[in-house]
């Protein structure tokens, strides 16, 4: 069996049938990590107990226990998620050395399904970034060309998965952090509807926008892992009680008659010619498959990026207040702690522990929430957000799935945008509105750029309609030029 191309289903049944052991599968990926990670810096931590964990799964199988649907499937986890006994840092110095005594619900569910957690993946610090360049643990590189960024914030997840250092990964998406790096690295990434996946144990960036999801090599694997991680969690009151569909079983590439919406505001020629080209060819394929095309307008999308930065920064300024050096993680070295006043203790620790981008957003958010500015910024953004949601609701009365590019360009070069935050923020132009409106969104690889970098397309659905985008993605995957390609890492 070729472990680089095998699906979750293939590996899991091979492991259950004892054709290969979970330990062997794990060792295979550990070896790849050993060999390739130094060039990519996709991992912030490799689980030295991974093989032992896999042996436990093998032992269960040997003893005749019916193990889960991901038995022996090797997962890498974005460092944003807490993993019991493994460092969980959110890519930040301020959480250096923090080892949580609990698993995020997503991780616990993967483990319960028999998955092996092989390590923690690099990311932009606290998921604030689009290039993985804000990580305290060094920037991660794009496996298609290591001069380029893998995207962000889940850059480590995308790079590890694209280069097959893992069989599957989990990323988080607050404004595009699953879809954009998936797009840059040529993998399938899905951001579920807000409330689908428990946020318990996921280090909060912007609580009303954050959602975790799979970043994997195929639509089938995406459907399989999504049905395992989603569903109500009593530890997260924002998860919905909706029953979880069997996405993988229901996958259907027949999209004849399905209404595909094109948003006028996304078609203003903002995109790079390569992106336009890939988008048009995918569009033509959808038409060929019998999809109906519907033109839509969602005028408030124009304000999605500013809305996103006001709301996410406001929530972040509060969410990150707990990192104060008192209880866990990093604390500045004080020669004589007893003579330091409290304010200096905080200022030193947080000043040293947070990177520039995080500080920028904490300040922005603090400002937005301050009395006198609250109504003009935070509150106004929330009001417009509600209206945007309404416009999407109207749009989804006319179509099943919205079809758009993921980003305006393919992956850019390391350092190209890192000095200009505003330029960097525009990466999110096509992705943030999905989070603001609480929708489901997906990135599927489809073509290659002139520089031989992958380019994907984005599918967006109404809340809890993930099956629809999975089906369209499944149809597109069959004619994708990227599917099954594994970049050669030098």
């Amino acid at each position, binding site marked *: 069996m070729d472990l680089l191309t095998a699906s979750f289903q293939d590996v899991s049944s091979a492991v259950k049938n004892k054709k290969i052991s979970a330990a062997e599968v794990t060792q295979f990926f550990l070896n790849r990590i050993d060999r390739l990670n130094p060039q990519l810096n996709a991992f912030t931590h490799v689980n030295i107990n991974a093989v032992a964990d896999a042996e436990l799964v093998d032992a269960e199988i040997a003893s005749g226990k019916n193990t889960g649907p991901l038995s022996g499937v090797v997962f890498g986890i974005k460092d944003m998620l807490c993993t019991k006994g493994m460092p969980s840092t959110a890519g930040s110095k301020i959480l250096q050395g923090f080892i949580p005594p*609990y698993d995020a619900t997503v991780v616990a569910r993967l483990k319960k399904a028999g998955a092996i957690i092989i390590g923690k993946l690099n990311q932009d610090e606290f998921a604030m970034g689009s290039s993985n360049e804000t990580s305290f643990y060094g920037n991660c590189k794009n496996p298609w060309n290591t001069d380029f960024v893998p995207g962000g914030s889940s850059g480590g997840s995308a790079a590890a998965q694209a280069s097959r250092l893992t069989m599957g990964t989990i990323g988080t998406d607050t404004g595009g952090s699953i879809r954009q790096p998936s797009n840059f690295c040529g993998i399938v990434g899905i951001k579920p509807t807000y409330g689908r996946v428990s946020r*318990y144990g996921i280090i909060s960036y912007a609580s009303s926008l954050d959602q975790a999801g799979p970043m994997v090599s195929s639509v089938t694997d995406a459907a399989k892992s999504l049905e395992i991680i989603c569903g109500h969690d009593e530890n997260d009151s924002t998860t919905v009680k909706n029953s979880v569909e069997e996405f993988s079983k229901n996958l259907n590439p027949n999209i004849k008659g399905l209404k595909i919406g094109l948003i006028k505001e996304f078609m203003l020629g903002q995109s790079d010619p390569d992106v336009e080209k890939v988008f048009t060819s995918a569009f033509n394929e959808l038409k060929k498959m019998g999809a109906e095309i519907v033109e839509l307008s969602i005028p408030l999308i124009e304000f999605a990026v500013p809305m996103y930065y006001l709301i996410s920064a406001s929530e972040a300024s*509060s969410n*990150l*207040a*707990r990192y*104060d050096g008192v209880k866990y993680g990093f604390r500045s070295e004080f020669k004589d702690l007893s003579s330091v006043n409290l304010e200096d203790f*905080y200022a030193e620790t947080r000043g040293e522990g947070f990177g520039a981008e995080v500080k920028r957003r904490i300040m922005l958010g603090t400002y937005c929430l301050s*009395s006198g500015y609250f109504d003009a910024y935070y509150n106004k953004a929330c009001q417009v957000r509600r209206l945007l949601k309404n416009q999407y609701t109207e749009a989804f009365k006319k179509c099943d799935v919205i079809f758009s590019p993921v980003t305006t360009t393919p992956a850019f070069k390391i350092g190209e945008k890192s000095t200009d935050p505003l330029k960097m923020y525009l990466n999110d132009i096509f992705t943030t509105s999905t989070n603001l409106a609480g929708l489901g969104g997906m990135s599927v690889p489809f073509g290659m750029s002139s520089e031989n970098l992958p380019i994907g397309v984005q599918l967006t659905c109404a809340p809890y309609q993930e099956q629809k985008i999975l089906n369209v993605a499944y149809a597109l995957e069959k004619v994708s030029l990227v599917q099954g390609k594994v970049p050669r890492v030098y």
Partner: protein
Amino acid sequence: MSINTVAAPNSFVRGYEAVIGIEVHVQLKTKSKIFCSDSTTFDAADNENTSPVSVGMPGSLPVLNREVVLMAIKTGLALGCKIREKSVFARKNYFYPDLPKGYQISQYDQPTCEHGQLYFYVNNYKKTVSITRAHLEEDAGKSTHFGQYTLINYNRAGIPLLEIVSGPDLRSAAEAAEYAKTIRDIVKSLDVCDGNLEEGSLRCDCNVSVRKIGAEKFGTRVEIKNLNSFRFIEKAVDYEIERQIDSIESGTPINQETRLYDPDKNRTFMMRTKEDADDYRYFPDPDLLPILLKSEDIEKIRKTLPELPIQKSERFQFTLGLSKNDSEILTSDRMLSEYFESCGQISGNYKSAANWVMGDLLRELNQNKLTIGDSKISAKNLAELIQFIDQNKISGKIAKTVFTEMWQTSKSAQNIVDENGYSQVSDTTAIEKIIDTVIEKNQSQVAEYRSGKTKVFGFFVGAVMRESKGQANPDVVNEILKRKLES
């Protein structure tokens, strides 16, 4: 019928009027914390009652404890509040080491309870106070300063609190203390709080200002924080009123500030000025859904409310004829009032029940540091004792002895009376016999009596009672003795 009350006296001090509003933090008596399943036991070891949620570990999320909402609704209804159909938790952002998340989850502009009102009696006049709001929030941890270091115990972090905010309607220290007592009595009667000020399960902050008599505008307000007894509330407010008047009279305007009360020196002192007060940057907590309540559910809860202490006290006064003082003491504790009512109902003699409960029973309880729940005498047994007295089965004097034995042995009055032969003798022939013997033995005293020295009558009564071991019915003794001596 209404209680005779007098008009509220003016409580002006040196040409000024005090304006006081109180915030009472009521610690709700839930088994687990407001946003996680940590225990709320008071005596746990340091940091024993903690979890990733209560110490604010990364990725942990709050989940609302339903019991807390139920208690808030009950309390709100008892305070005459309107219960909002939608209430929202917000984050109050500030940094302090004992605040694990860097923000406190608290209701802000949409509290569960608002616009209420309650009344109580202060020195015989009736005082009505508006309740602005009662909102839910989580408590912070506790910092203990040890020399150069500060230790933090997070057991208290996440304990549910209901903060009850009064309108600026109180006008004297006595009113302030009585208001706080009334709140204490209400939350105890609802069984939502144990009402213990010393342990901090009820904490009072008083906002005090003074203004010239007749002035419309409020003066600058000073907050006195963490007053942990009713006496301290009264003394601190009294002190603060005088201090503010002194300050104004000497030409120094009042600063808006937070002060603490030092009971040893009986004075308030500054803790911090409001100028360096934080901007708390409140915003709705995105981790929690709004609390949505249906009006029919609220009405259902209203029907479960017990009679409130003040209403009970009024009923004890009008319909049972108890004194104001007795009524107030008996209604200050729900179990005590239940005990009393049950005893009064069974015995059919509420006045006597009140006397026994207020007198002998409370004395025993206090001496043994017990609460009514630990009473060695059940209400039913005490009622039986009262009935025995009322039926002339035993004398009042013997009853005291029976009570003491009941307390010591937990036996019923019937058992003790039977075992000791305490039954009062009303049988005239038996008593006549004893009297004859006494007269026989004391001929010289008989002569004295008959010669007009009627004072020796008491001597005969005593002798007869002694002879009957106290069991003779004194009325019968008096009657027969008189007849015999005078014949």
